[in-house]
C-alpha cells in the first residue's frame, strides 16, 4: 500500500514568513499545520513518492526558505 505522507518544518528567511506561507498555500498536497518558534509545520501528501519528493524539491529551492526539513517520512513507501 502506498501512503506517501510526510511531515516537515519550513524555516523562512528573516522577514519572509508571510511570503513562504502564501507560496505554501498555493501548493497542492501541502497543509500548513501551525507556525512555531522554529518554523512552519506542514504535512505533505501525494499520490506517489515521486510527487511527494518533487513538492519537497520545489520548497527546498525557494530563495525565501533557509531550511526545509523532513521530520517524518512514511516508511511503507521506501523501496
Amino acid at each position, binding site marked *: 500500500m502506498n501512503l506517501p*505522507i510526510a511531515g516537515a518544518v519550513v524555516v523562512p528567511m528573516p522577514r519572509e514568513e508571510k511570503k513562504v506561507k502564501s507560496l505554501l498555500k498555493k501548493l497542492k498536497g501541502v497543509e500548513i499545520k501551525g507556525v512555531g518558534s522554529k*518554523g512552519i509545520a506542514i504535512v505533505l501528501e501525494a499520490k506517489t513518492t515521486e510527487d511527494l519528493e518533487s513538492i519537497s524539491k520545489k520548497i527546498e529551492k525557494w530563495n525565501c526558505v533557509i531550511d526545509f526539513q523532513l521530520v517524518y517520512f512514511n516508511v511503507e513507501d521506501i523501496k
Partner: protein
Amino acid sequence: MSMKLSRREFIKASATAIAMTYAGLAVKPVFAKESELKFGRSQCRFCGTGCTVLVGIKDGKVVAVKGDADSPVNFGRLCMKGYKLPEILYGGGGKKRLTKPLIRQEDGSFKEVSWEEALDLIADTFVDNIKKFGPDSVAWYGSGQNTTEEAYAANKLFKGIIGTANVEGNPRLCMASAVGGYLNTFGTDEPAGSYDDLDLADCFFIIGANMAEQHPMLFRRVIDRKSAYPDRVKVIVADPRYTPTARYADLHLQFKSGTDMYLLNAMAQVIIDEDLVDHEHLKYCTFKKELGSSGELMNLEEFKEFLKDYTPEKVESITGVKAEDIRLAASWFARKGYSTVSLWTMGLNQRTKGVQLNCQVHNLHLITGKIGKPGCDSLSLTGQPNACGGTREQGGLTHLLPGHRLLANEEHRRQIAEIWGYPVEQLPTKPTGPAVNMFMRLEKGDIKAIWINTTNPAQSLPNADRYREAMRKAFTVVSDIYPDRTTEVATAILPSAMWVEKEGVMGQTDRRSQFIPKLIDPPGEAKPDFWQIKEVAKRIAKKLGRKDLGFETEEEAWNEYRRCTKGTDVDLWGATREKLKAHAGGVQWPCPSTDFDNRGSNKRFISKEYAKKVFGKTTKKYSTGYVTLYDQHLEDKKLEGPVNYYGTNPLHGEPKGKALIRAVNAEVDFEMPDKEYPYVLNTGRVIEHWHTGTMTMRVRLLRELNPEAYVEISPQDADRLGIKNGQNVRITSPRGSIVLSAWITDRAQPGMVFVPWFDENKLINDLTVDDPKSWSKAGEPNYKVCKCKVERA
C-alpha cells in the same frame, strides 16, 4: 488513538504531530505502527556532525530512519541526506553493491575470486615487496569514514607489524590544517567547546563554511538561537560566495578569494585598537611570531604594532570588504559580556595558508576571551563522520601514533610498542610524507603496493588524472561498497560491509564518540573492513615471522585503543562499549572516568571552580547521564587552573599552560589568477551530495535534485563572456580542461567560478592544483583557490 482512524489519517496525524513538535509547537510526537519495526540506535554517516539516528529494520532490511530525540546532537532532527540513509545501502543510479572479491586480469577485466584467494594474493604481494624493497614500498590510504577500530587495526598493521609510516588518509585533504591550527595555538588538537555552545552564542562568526547546506543540523541550532533572540544574536558570514548561509547572515563579508588573512588580521587590529580585549584572559596567553616553536615571543604592545599595517582602511582594497563592515564585524565579535562562536570548514583548511588562517581565528577568540565560557568557542567543523576519531585521535596519519602521540617521539613510540606488544625497533621512527606526497611516490614507483580503503582518491585527489595512472600501474587494493573511479584502476577489489552492516565507533567535531551497531547482514560476500584488515594482518605477520594484531573482535580492538588513550589529553578510557551503546550522542573526551553516567567533558581547558563561576554549575544533565562543564583531564592530571591550555606539543613550544596568539603575516594563496588564467577556481560540495557521490548518487531523490556537475558564474562575468544560463562552458587550468553547463548566479563572485566535485563523469579535480608549494603547512592541498580560464565551449 481512536480506533476509527484510518491508516492514512493515523499517519497524517503522526506526521502533523512530529512536524509541529519540531516547529516549536507544544505537541507530543507519536509514531505510526512502529511496533512492526525493530529500531536500533546509530549515527548518520553523511557528514561530520554525527546526528544520532534510530534505524528501523524489517525483514533484515533498513526501511526507516528517524532522528533520535534523546540525542544532544540533533534532538531528533535530520536533514534530507539523513532521511535518505536507507537508500544508500541498496544501490541505484545504475550501480549495484560490490558483493564478491574481484581481481583484475591481463586483459583488464575483473574476475570473481574467493576471499581466500584474494587475501592470499594481497598478503603475498605486500610481503614480496617488503622483502625486496623494504617496508616503505607498501602503503595504506584510509578514510575519515573508517570506524576507529578499522583505522586502529590498519595503523597497527602498517606501523606495528610491517614497520612503515606510509599510513595516510583522506582527512589529510580536509582537516590537516585545522589540526595544525589547534596544535600551534593550544598545543593540543581539537576544540575546547561543544555543539552546546551554539545554543548559547550571541554572535556566530562563520568563515569558509556553507553550514546551511553542508552542516544543516548544526545550522538549525544557529537559526534557532537567532530566531529566539533576533536583535541580540548576530550572524556574520565571511565567504567569497553568496551562499544560502551568507543570505541568512546579518553581515556578509564577501572578500575576494584568497585574501581572508588580511580580513582576519584587520579584525584583530580593530579589537586591539579599540581595546575590546579581555585583559583577564590574556593572562593565559602569550604572543608569538609566525608558526612553530622557534618564533620570538611578543607582548600585547608589539602585537598591536605588528597589526598596524592591517587597519580596515588599508585592507579594504585588497579584500574588497568595506572598512566599516570589518569594524562592525569586529565589534560584534568582541562585544563585552556577550558570547561568540566561530565555525569554519574547508574554506580555511584547504588553503595554502590553511594553518595560519586557523590560528588567526583562534587569535580572535583568545584576545577577546571568547573561549571556555558559555556560548564561546573556536569550533572547527569536520566534514566526515570519523575524521576526528579514526584519524586525528587514533593517529591515522604518517606522523602520528594513537592518542595524539607523535611517531618521531621516542617515548611515544615506546609507550605504543608496549601496548601493541611489539619490540619498539619494529616501529618506524620518522614520518614519510602526507597524502599527495604518498601518491607522488606511488607514481615514481617507490611505493609498489597500496591499500585504499573507504575512499575514492581517483576522484578526490588534486590533479587526480595523474594519480589514476599511478594507481593503475601499481598493485592497488581497493575496499569499497560500490564501483567508483578508484575501483576502476584497482588490481584487487574487496567488497565491504557498510554503516549498520558492521559495528564500530566514530568520533566527530566536538570530541564526541558514538557507537554504530551491526543491525543487518551485508549483501553477498561483502565483509567488514575490520575483518579484511585482520585477515591480511594474520597472513602478513605469519610470513614476516611477527606477532599478529592480537585481537579478534572490534570490541577487543576498541578496548586496546582505550588503553592507548588512557591518561592522555584525548582520554577515552571512560568511553566503555557499554556507555557508548547506552547514551544517545555518546561520550565526549577527555573522559577518564568509567562511571556509567559520566559522559565526559563538554568544555576543555577550564577547572571545576572556573566552570562554577562562568556556568553557575559544574555538570549538565542529558536524558541519560551527564557531561562536566569543566575539563576532566585537568582534574585528572592535577593541572593548575582556572584556565590551562596544555601547551606541551613540540609544535607549540613553551610556555606550558599558555595558549599562543600567533602574529602571522597576511599572504594570498600559491596560485592566484594571472593574465592567461584570470579566474579563481573554487570547488566544494552541494547540499544533495556528499563527497564523490559514491553513496548519494545511489539515492534517486538526491540524484534528481542535482544530477550532474555545473559551473557557477557571476552575472557580471557571464555578461562579459557572453555566456547564457545552461550554455556549455570550458574551464581550463594549467593541469586540465573540462566542459560544464553554466549556472549564472549571484552565488559566484565576479572573478571566481565554483564547481562541485561529486560528479564522477565530470572530474573537476583533474584541474585542481597539486604542487607541494600550494599545500598548507600541514600538507593539506588547496581545493579552494587555483587559477583558471573560462570560455564558451
